[in-house]
């Protein structure tokens, strides 16, 4: 099996990166987990925790869909339904999608992709994880309080979220959990930015960084711009609830819509904070499995940067129906975002064009991402137009739109796990189970979103536990529930696959004949990541090393680079407290 999956085995085993001459000695077991500052272990903890959150949030979704399978379902009470859709959204957005990408995969992959020994601030990185874990626990603790979990929707709109309309500990736990995870995101943003700016390997210029790293840089900058606003808003909300301020209530001269401004000023960049890492994953995967460099590398970078730039000016398209926002400005800005996104889709197709396609699970997931994201993106363009938004606001059309987007991200994220899983653990995942998971996930996604588009255009409002007895609506809701069940089964297949493939198919250093620096080191990478580094002359150093006959064209200056001597063993020294002797002055943390 491993050989079938591993056509590049001879290339990968050509000797570089082997010889475990520098084993790391430290605490083991639970103490290792608690005290580690290694970005790979922290990233793995993040990944496992966020996948657990995906399962919890998915369970909420299955209960919601079971309730909606019939017009007057009795599975949950109306109050429980409010808690379920609130916590489904909260868990998926705050605790799964973001942390999975920027805390999980990016944490592991970005330092290795740029040839860094660790994140710039390893202890801050560990603190991020602990804040994320405790934030998740805090938010979910709401289910164990007498009043139940938060039930004002994941957006916590102002008059509804005050202490009169939503009393109880659940809402406060929601606020507290978000404060913790918000700080964890900010610290991760600081860490990623500093790592990318300061810890690149020699020759790894900015315009040679892999697209995934570029996307994570823009994501990190967006985190720094957006999350402090949410944290400030949450503190204001808490003051309104407990200290008698009237920031969001008209009674004391406050402005309820201010909450929406603050929330969406975080919330829309957050959409790109969620999406950009997954765009990066899909870009890497499509390039590797087409055996081509990324088509239009620079346009890809500028598209990412312009998505980041525009994302700060589109927040109020969530607030068109409030009647107090500047419609043309936000409509124009939102429509403009379609341009860089279109460039990205064009480049993904360009990367595959006349490539040597290899339909592994990761590639199928990325293609599924492309298709599903296109549907979600195009319906987003409709919603950016105020007349259409007035018609569809708060209906299932909006629900279907953003579920197309986030399910596309789940597809890309699963692709990322199949693609980078071998690098992280040293073992491949089973491809047959992976393909079964892909088809169920992909078809299930379409089956559950398409009926919702039609329901939304028919006028079915979101967040309702009951709906009128209409045979067509019942039929569409049944289909939607069937799709949700398919998605649920696909997640079970993934968990089964992880269990089944556990230490079964050794991966080798570079099982996919991939291009970027993380595939140059061992799987899993050693402590501080590299024994040696190749010469970096393009955005695909590992490919250049493994295929000297098909070198990439060097970016920028240095076109004569081909004639330089073979890579010298990197003499990069990493000082480690208490391990190596050496000067400890100038510690960078």
């Amino acid at each position, binding site marked *: 099996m491993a050989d079938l999956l591993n056509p590049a085995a001879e290339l990968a085993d050509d000797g570089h990166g082997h010889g475990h001459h520098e084993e790391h000695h430290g605490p083991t077991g639970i103490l290792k987990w*608690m005290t580690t500052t290694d970005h790979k272990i922290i990233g793995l903890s993040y990944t496992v925790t966020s996948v657990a959150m995906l399962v919890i949030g998915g369970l909420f979704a299955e209960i919601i869909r079971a309730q909606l399978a019939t017009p007057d379902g009795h599975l949950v009470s109306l109050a429980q339904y409010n808690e379920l859709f609130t916590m489904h959204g909260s868990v998926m957005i705050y605790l799964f999608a973001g942390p999975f990408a920027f805390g999980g995969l990016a944490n592991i992959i970005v330092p290795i992709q740029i040839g860094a020994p660790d994140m710039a601030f390893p*202890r801050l990185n560990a603190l991020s994880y602990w804040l994320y874990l405790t934030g998740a626990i805090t938010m979910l603790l709401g289910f164990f309080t007498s009043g139940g979990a938060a039930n004002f929707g994941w957006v916590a709109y102002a008059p509804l979220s005050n202490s009169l309309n939503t009393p109880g500990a659940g809402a406060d736990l929601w606020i507290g959990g978000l404060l913790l995870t918000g700080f964890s995101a900010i610290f991760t943003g600081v860490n990623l930015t500093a790592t990318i700016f300061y*810890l690149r390997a*020699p020759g790894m210029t900015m315009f040679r960084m892999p697209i995934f790293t570029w996307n994570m840089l823009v994501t990190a900058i967006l985190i720094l711009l957006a999350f402090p606003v949410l944290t400030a808003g949450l503190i204001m909300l808490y003051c309104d609830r407990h200290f008698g301020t009237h920031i969001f209530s008209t009674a004391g001269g406050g402005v309820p819509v201010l909450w929406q401004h603050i929330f969406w000023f975080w919330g829309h960049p957050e959409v790109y904070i969620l999406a950009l890492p997954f765009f990066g994953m899909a870009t890497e995967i499509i390039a590797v499995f087409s055996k081509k460099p990324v088509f239009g590398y620079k346009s890809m970078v500028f598209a990412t940067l312009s998505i980041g730039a525009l994302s700060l*000016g589109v927040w109020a398209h969530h607030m068109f129906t409030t009647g107090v926002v500047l419609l043309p*400005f936000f409509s124009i800005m939102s429509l403009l975002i379609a341009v860089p996104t279109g460039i990205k889709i064009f480049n993904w197709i360009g990367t595959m064009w006349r490539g040597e396609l290899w339909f592994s699970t990761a590639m199928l997931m990325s293609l599924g991402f492309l298709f599903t994201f296109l549907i979600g993106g195009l319906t987003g363009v409709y919603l950016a137009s105020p007349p259409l938004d007035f018609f569809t606001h708060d209906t299932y059309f909006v629900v279907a739109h953003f579920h197309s987007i986030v399910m596309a991200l789940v597809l890309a994220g699963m692709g990322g796990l199949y693609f980078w899983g071998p690098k992280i653990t040293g073992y491949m995942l089973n491809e047959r189970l992976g393909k079964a998971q892909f088809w169920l996930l992909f078809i299930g996604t379409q089956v559950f979103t398409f009926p919702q588009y039609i329901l939304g255009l028919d006028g079915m409002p979101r967040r309702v536990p009951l709906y009128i007895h209409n045979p067509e609506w019942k039929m569409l809701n049944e289909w939607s529930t069937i799709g949700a069940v398919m998605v649920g089964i696909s997640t079970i297949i993934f968990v089964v696959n992880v269990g089944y493939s556990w230490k079964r198919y050794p991966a080798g250093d570079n099982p996919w004949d991939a291009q970027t620096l993380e595939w140059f080191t061992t799987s899993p990478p050693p402590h501080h990541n590299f024994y040696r580094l190749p010469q970096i002359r393009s955005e695909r150093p590992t490919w250049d090393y493994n295929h000297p006959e098909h070198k990439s064209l060097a970016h920028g200056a240095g076109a004569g*680079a081909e004639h330089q001597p073979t890579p010298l063993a990197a003499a990069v020294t*990493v000082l480690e407290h208490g*391990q190596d002797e050496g000067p400890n002055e100038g510690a960078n943390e």
Partner: protein
Amino acid sequence: MKVEAKILLSLGTFFGVMCAVYWNWSLENAGGVMMFAGMLLCFLPGSYYYWWSRRMKVRPEDDPNSTQSEGAGVVGSFPSTSIFPFMLGMGAFFVVLALVFGIWFLVPGLFLAVWAFLGATAEGRRGGHV
């Protein structure tokens, strides 16, 4: 360093232009203030990087022709293990629980947080690990 500076400065410039257009057109203050702050957040590190990039030698990672041996030397000082992030995380957890369940949670929360602050600082100075 120049590319890093240019990215942040051009993002900041874009936010500034967007802020000016939006604020003058809508006369709505919340968004204007937030975009202005976004501009400052990009200009602050961006101008610092720009200032430095004109005064420093080209780093090996910015030189397209550098070899790996040019990066030889001390990259930085990385702690191998540390218990203090966990302690600080738990401290923050209890402080947040104090917001919800009662002020007495502040006692273990602040105790852990202060211990972790002091411990992490001492660890950084001493250069030793736990």
